[in-house]
């Protein structure tokens, strides 16, 4: 096993996705200097609601949308800034993504990329955020039905929670890194509502084993697992464009079968390690400590290929 530490480099594509800002992710993900933002920060389209709560606003409301090139192909991209209000969906934050998806129907890009980094709905604008999430999901299915892949990238600090998790589930293809978490209810939410016996949110190994990138990839909830670098996400996004499934009855029937089979096969499990064992992983306890290369080798060694209809 290769235990070499992370390389030290200032090259943008070697930067940690997890640590990078939303803008830095976009800059490194897309071809150099090709990103053009819509409703840029200089327009100061900020939340009209946060001042009521005496909270500071951001020029972009934590959502950056625009166009750029990915290996020469025109794409539209949206990135959430997980450090601003936990990347949560508010009125403007959500409306920018709605607009981007609607624009996709008009400009027909090669793909729409969504760089998730969100705790879900912004409570201070809960109704607007919740409604925007519904609009986004509807728009995604329309974009997909028009033959344009919508690809989600998950590896930020805030993870992809709440309504963000549902939007991700609507995408045609998901790329996730080890640090990425994908779920509906967060650990703290479950603990608050159901008690620490149900979910001990301080047991971070449990959190990642249940919601983290490796588990989601093994389970089939994400299509690609990548190292935590901007470059790795870029490569995976590129590879995803031709692979994305169409949005039609056949795809959803396949997904229905996939999800029913999962319940049938794993419905009685309590812990991710049991699921991994049933998938044919010889040493489930060792999975969390595997490097990206080690994990890739594990994926290759598993008896079944991936079947990711979504």
């Amino acid at each position, binding site marked *: *096993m290769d*235990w070499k*530490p992370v390389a030290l480099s200032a090259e943008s594509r070697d930067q940690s996705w997890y640590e990078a800002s939303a803008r830095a992710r976009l800059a490194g993900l897309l071809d150099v200097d090709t990103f053009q933002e819509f409703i840029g920060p200089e327009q100061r389209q900020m939340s009209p609601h946060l001042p009521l709560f005496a909270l500071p606003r951001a020029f972009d409301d934590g959502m950056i949308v625009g166009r750029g090139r990915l290996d020469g192909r025109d794409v539209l991209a949206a990135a959430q800034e997980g450090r601003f209000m936990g990347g949560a969906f508010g009125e403007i934050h959500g409306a920018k993504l709605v607009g981007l998806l609607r624009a996709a129907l008009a400009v027909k890009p090669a793909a729409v990329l969504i760089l998730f980094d969100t705790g879900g709905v912004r409570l201070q604008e809960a109704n607007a955020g919740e409604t925007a999430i519904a609009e986004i999901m509807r728009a995604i299915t329309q974009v997909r039905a028009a033959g344009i892949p919508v690809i989600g990238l998950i590896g930020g600090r805030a993870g992809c929670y709440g309504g963000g998790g549902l939007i991700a589930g609507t995408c045609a293809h998901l790329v996730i890194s080890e640090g990425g978490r994908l779920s509906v209810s967060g650990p703290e939410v479950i603990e608050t509502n159901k008690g620490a016996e149900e979910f001990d949110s301080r047991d*971070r190994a449990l959190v990642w084993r249940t919601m983290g990138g490796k588990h989601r990839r093994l389970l089939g909830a994400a299509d690609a697992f990548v190292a935590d670098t901007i470059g790795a996400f870029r490569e995976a996004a590129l590879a995803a464009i031709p692979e994305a499934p169409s949005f039609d009855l056949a795809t959803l029937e396949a997904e229905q079968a996939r999800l029913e089979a999962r319940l049938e096969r794993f419905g009685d499990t309590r812990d991710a390690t049991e699921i991994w064992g049933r998938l044919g992983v010889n040493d489930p306890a060792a999975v969390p400590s595997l490097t990206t290369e080690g994990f890739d080798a594990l994926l290759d060694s598993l008896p079944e290929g991936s079947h990711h209809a979504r």
Partner: protein
Amino acid sequence: MMDWRQERTARDARLVRARPHADGKIVPSARVVDLLEAILQPGDRVCLEGDNQKQADCLARGLSGCDPARVHDLHMVQSGIVLPEHLDIFEQGIARRLDYSYSGPQGGRIAKMLYGGQIELGAVHTYLELFARYFIDLTPNVALIAGVSADRDGNLYTGPNTEDTPTVVEATAFKNGVVVAQVNEIVDRVPRVDIPGDRVDFVVEADTPFYVEPLFTRDPGAVTETQILMAMMAIKGIYAEYGIRRLNHGIGFGTAAIELLLPTYAERLGLKGQIATHWALNPHPSLIPAIESGWVKQIHCFGSEVGMDKYIRARPDVFFTGSDGSLRSNRAFCQTAGLYACDLFIGSTLQIDLQGHSSTVTTNRVAGFGGAPNMGSDPHGRRHPSDTWMKAGQEAGGTGDPALRRGRKLVVQLVETFGDKLVPAFVERLDALELARKLNLELAPVMVYADDVTHIVTEEGIANLLLCRTLDEREQAIRGVAGYTDVGRGRDHAEVERLRARGIIRRPEDLGIEPLDADRSLLAARSIKDLVHWSGGLYEPPAKFRNW
């Protein structure tokens, strides 16, 4: 006729009373309260082992379960007030008087109880002081200690967290006291004998393994650009300047940043082998990249750190380990080493005043001292020279024959000018003074005295207090690195520029450091997971530090 054996007789009587609760030396955990009620007498001096790391928690619960009608007015003489039970016993009337050293998480409650008169305070000590007094005037009658395992003869294996145990046992067992140990398991043969069985009277098999706080784990993911900038300044402006090889680090994020910059930034400066080779330090996970890169010759430890056992076992050239392979730590020896054999201490604090006195006390928290004042003081008993020590002594100046001038230990405060919630680190007057007034303390709880501090490093620059010749200069040197705090904004700008011209104040640009280069990509590890990778999978971080 004089009875010279009164203490011994009293000890024998305690043992006789306790025997019915034990099978030989072995006591089931269910009988702890019975055992303690049989051994203890009102007014006893008791050491309930616990410091900033391991805790004799099973025995603490047992003591708190004693009947105050039978066990009362104890005088607790112990390193740490850490567990709730440590203070519960004062509320219950089981204990009355307290001499201690460190109180971290209970700092707020202890302040309230001191203020409310529920605790009769002897003094707040440094570790070494308290250990010293165990042998002079605070010798325990009963010691309640913690170990990993014991055999039926009482031979004790403390595991990597040996810490205070040998010191406490030495003072108690050899002066007619009774020693009770809690262990995680009774075994046929202990992996190594840390405490010989003839010093242990009773062994309690604890219901749960003793608690250890992972106090020395700093997540590299939380190191900020400002801390990286300060670490760069410390490395270039102090470590390189004085050629510091033998040192001790505090536990803050600033010193963690230094540790994480050794294999990167310091390596680029060509300092490998020139600095930071010999350490008095707990096994900080953030030092793993420097160890793996060949920077570190050896480390002696106060205690251990959760998750580091396997790594330490695999690096016996670096760490002190026993015949069984695991770490042997010893707080008393390591404190002594830090005091006498290190040329530099660098650590953080909460408040620094205009003279350079520093304190971690705020008006409603008494955190105690732990070991920092031992490390962070200039030992007047030191006689061996080193280049570092001599250079610092020279800078401090003085008159007379140079061969009669002692050197100076470097004591560096690494502080960001503002702490959490924009609380300034630089103040006109320490909160410790107000606390001392409220509690009628003769001495204000000062962590590092002004005359021991040699340098203050902030994000604004380095103040070299050794070079200051007057109190005014010293004040302006401190103001000159105090940033935008009230103290910093109250500086005499012209005087500060003069101090800068004399090299008493050095800005990042004076050191050839561009603040915009202070980037997280300079860190040898940017996450706990990176540390695991550096360790070759040997470091096993506790669950709360994982994000995988």
